[in-house]
C-alpha cells in the first residue's frame, strides 16, 4: 500500500480520536471542527480505496484479493457510519463513538498493510 497515504490517514484518525477524547472530557458536543476531521478521514479512505484497488489489479504478488478488498471497503464504511451513529445522540456518548472510529481506522490500516506485505514475501 502507499506508505504516505497510510501514514497520513493514521495521523488524521488518531487526531479524530484525540480531539474526541478531549471533547468527551470537556463535555462538548460534536462541532464542525470534529466533523471536518471526519470528512477529511472519509475523503482519505476513498482515496485509499481507489489506490488500493489499482494496486491489487496491478500487482503480480499472490495477494488475498478478497481480504484486501474487504479491508479497503471496511475503511470507507467506518467514517460515514460512525458519524451518523455519533450524531444520533448529541451527548458525550455520541462523541465517544468517534473515539472508537478514530482507533479502528489505524487498526484496519495496520492489518491491511500486514496482509499486503505478507503477499510480497
Amino acid at each position: 500500500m502507499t506508505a504516505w497515504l497510510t501514514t497520513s490517514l493514521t495521523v488524521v484518525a488518531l487526531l479524530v480520536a484525540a480531539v474526541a477524547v478531549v471533547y468527551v472530557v470537556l463535555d462538548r458536543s460534536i462541532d464542525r471542527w470534529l466533523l471536518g476531521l471526519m470528512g477529511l478521514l472519509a475523503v482519505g479512505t476513498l482515496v485509499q480505496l481507489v489506490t488500493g484497488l489499482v494496486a491489487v489489479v496491478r500487482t503480480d504478488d499472490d495477494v488475498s484479493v478478497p481480504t484486501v478488498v474487504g479491508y479497503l471497503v471496511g475503511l470507507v464504511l467506518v467514517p460515514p457510519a460512525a458519524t451518523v451513529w455519533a450524531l444520533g445522540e448529541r451527548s458525550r456518548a455520541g462523541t465517544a463513538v468517534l473515539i472508537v472510529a478514530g482507533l479502528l481506522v489505524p487498526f484496519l490500516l495496520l492489518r491491511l498493510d500486514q496482509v499486503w506485505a505478507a503477499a510480497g514475501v
Partner: protein
Amino acid sequence: MSEARSHGLGRVLIAVYAVFALAATGRSGVQLATKADEAPVPYVLSALAAVVYIAATLGLARSGEGWRRVAWLACGVELAGVLVVGALSLVEPDWFPDDTVWSGFGAGYGYLPLVLPFAGLAWLWHTRDAPDAG
C-alpha cells in the same frame, strides 16, 4: 428514556459490537469463500460468531421487547462461545488449524471478545426496567 438500551453508554457499546459484527462477517466470509474445506471447524465457528455479533448489535440498537430478548440471547451465546472456544483452543489446539475470533479467549483482538459479552449483559441488566421507547 435516558436509560434505553441505545442511549448513553449503550451507544458506544453498540458501536463496538458493530465493529465486531463487521470483522467477524468479513473474516468468515473470506474463509468460507476461499478455503472452506481447509479448516471447517474454525470457519463454521467464525460464521457463528458473525451471526451472534450481528444479532447482538441489532438487539441492543433496536427498541422493543423482542429485540431485547434477541440481545439477551446473543450476549449469552457470545459469552458461552468465547469461554468454550477459548478453552478448547488452548486444550485441543489440533481442532483449530486456523484462528477464530474467539480463539485463546479473543487474544488476537486484545481480549475484547472476552470483555464484550460481560459489558453487553451488564448493560442489558442495567437497562432492564427502562421504558422501551427507543
